[in-house]
């Protein structure tokens, strides 16, 4: 049965460290995006990117350690991400309705 599936050498061809490096780079890019953009939508996109990088890391570890629980976690992370994005975008729309902009620097009332 295994032989009929995707070739196993595809997995082993690359060392685990490279997956780690890729996901770390993606995560850092996400952080840079969150920090340097004023556009709320792009900030959300960056957050999605960071979530993805973590997912990638989890899947890589799962395969290399022969443990499928991590993939279940990834599944749940996707669930949470989807819910978060739905609510976040709803808030974004509401913010836009109230202050007519999606500039994050327009939100400066978070103080007492």
């Amino acid at each position, binding site marked *: 049965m295994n032989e009929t599936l995707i070739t196993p050498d595809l997995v082993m061809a690359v060392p685990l460290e490279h997956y780690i490096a890729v996901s770390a780079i993606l995560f850092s890019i996400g952080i840079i995006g969150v920090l340097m953009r004023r556009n709320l939508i792009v900030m959300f996109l960056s957050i999605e990117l960071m979530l993805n990088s973590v997912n990638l890391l989890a899947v890589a570890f799962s395969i290399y350690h022969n443990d499928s629980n991590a993939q279940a976690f990834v599944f749940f992370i996707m669930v949470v991400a989807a819910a978060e994005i739905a609510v976040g975008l709803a808030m974004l729309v509401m913010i836009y309705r109230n202050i007519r902009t999606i500039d994050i620097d327009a*939100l400066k009332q978070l103080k007492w």
Partner: protein
Amino acid sequence: MASFDTTHIISLLVPLLPLAGFFGYFLYGDKLSESKVGTLASGWVILSFLLSLVLFGQIPVDGAIQVNYFNWMQAGSFTVPFAFQIDQLSVIMMMLVTGVGSLIHIYSIGYMHGDNGFSRFFAYLNLFIFFMLLLVMANNYVLMFAGWEGVGLCSYLLIGFWYKNPEYSAAANKAFIVNRIGDLFMLYGLYMIFKHFGTFVYSDINGMAQSVFNADTAIIGIITLLLFAGATGKSAQIPLHTWLPDAMAGPTPVSALIHAATMVTAGIYLIIRSNVLFALAPLTNEIIVIIGLATTLVAGMIALKQNDIKKVLAYSTVSQLGLMFFALGVGAYAAAFFHLLTHAFFKALLFLGAGSVIHGMHGEQDIRKMGGLSGKMKYTHITFLIAVIAIIALPPLSGFFSKDYILASVFGKSPVLWFFGALSGLLTAFYMMRLYLLVFKGKSRMPEADAAKIHESPSVMLMPLYVLAGLSALGGFMNIPSIFGGSQWLENFLKPVVSLSELHIDHGTEWILMGISTVLVLGIVFWTYNMYVKKNDVPESDAVLATMPFANFLNRKFYFDEFYDAVFSQPLLKFSTFIQKWIETSIVDKVTDSFGMLSFFLSGQVRKLQNGHISFYLFAMVLGILGILTIFILL
């Protein structure tokens, strides 16, 4: 804790009843009617008086009842018990305080009628009775000092009772501050007592006095001097006497109760209480003689030229107190205490009579505007007359016995001192006759319209006058000297507390002395009668007075107030102004302000961190995570 027999309960109830009264009116006073407040307040004190009588009956012949309740303060070897000592001295003081106190309460129902602060007045009076009882019943100096301060507080509250008048408030402040000066010395005296005796309880101290004296003779002298300094404050002796005349700003019943009969005698009580110590300090006794004599003469002279009915009585009080100290100084403790009692009766009566006159004349206090009141205020007149005869020491009223007793004791010490004492008696006779004749005799000096409105006081005010008149007349029979075949009951009764004065002169001399003073007093009476009734002399008006140097000097009270003002108050005020101007505003304020400004500035800087920008917060969060991770790796 000792078992609580009836004596415990009774002696606790004596002070607690007035205290309960105080709290009662303080909380509910405004809701009760005047008559209820007055009746209740008097009721508490009368009950206390009856209980004191019971205690009087329980006193053992030669000893004291010690009633211990609990330890009030304890710190290491420092122990102050909350305990009463009921002995011959304190039980008489208790009866005096509650007895005269209840009479004055009853009198006040009439006098304070219609006043806005009616219930407040009675609350203060009851509080005063409580503290005064604490003062006389305590068995140690600290508890006594608590009562001592408490009566000072009540005195302050009652002098400034009509606090809306700034002058009255100033008088209250003056009384309080001058008393503080004496209290400071007294407090220091208490420290010394604890340092050298290790206890505050009277009986322990009396037992140890001789051994402490043997160890260091100066100690007792210093302690007694300090205690005496405290007494000069409370009992208005030179140089701390200036507050008492001003204290007449309070309602007249207060003057009668606090500033004549009871509180001002606390100093006398203190010295009699500590007579074992004072007997060991001859130098202190000499100082007491000098101060007492100076006070009685100076106050007597000042009283000659006062024109305010209450001021005359106030200086008379100072003078009589000086006489008592004079007696204490020569060691005639029983005589001083005897005079304290009789003085309490007739001086309370005089004040209440004066109050009745003021009440009848709708607030007029200047004797130059009175005269001929005997017809209009018959009963007040008779009781006042009895009091006057008592105070100028004509036989057989009470003042005669007590004053004669003092003078006889003094003569045994030194005839020169007797001369000054007798001189004080003559001054008393003159100013009291002057007061009496100007107020009640002669022609009426007020406008007709005002004269028609004068009325006799209500019976609730007259009743206490009758009782006090009876006491003033008969009080002297407490201690009939042996010369009249008496048994000297009071002196014998006090024997367990006060050692007998051994200085008894032979009867022949005593007869002569008595005769001389009585004849002189009678001479003064005729002289004044001649002057103020026959010739109708009226005291000079203020303008005329100002042109007469010596009379003016007397009228202005020897310039004591001005002297204190110039020597103490003004320099202090100038110094304070200087401090306020230069040190307070330019240094202290700047320093404190700069601390405030600094923290304001720094927090303003820190506050910029919380600028409300979400992106800034995000940045901070990322940096924080970064820091945590870095630390994590480095560890």
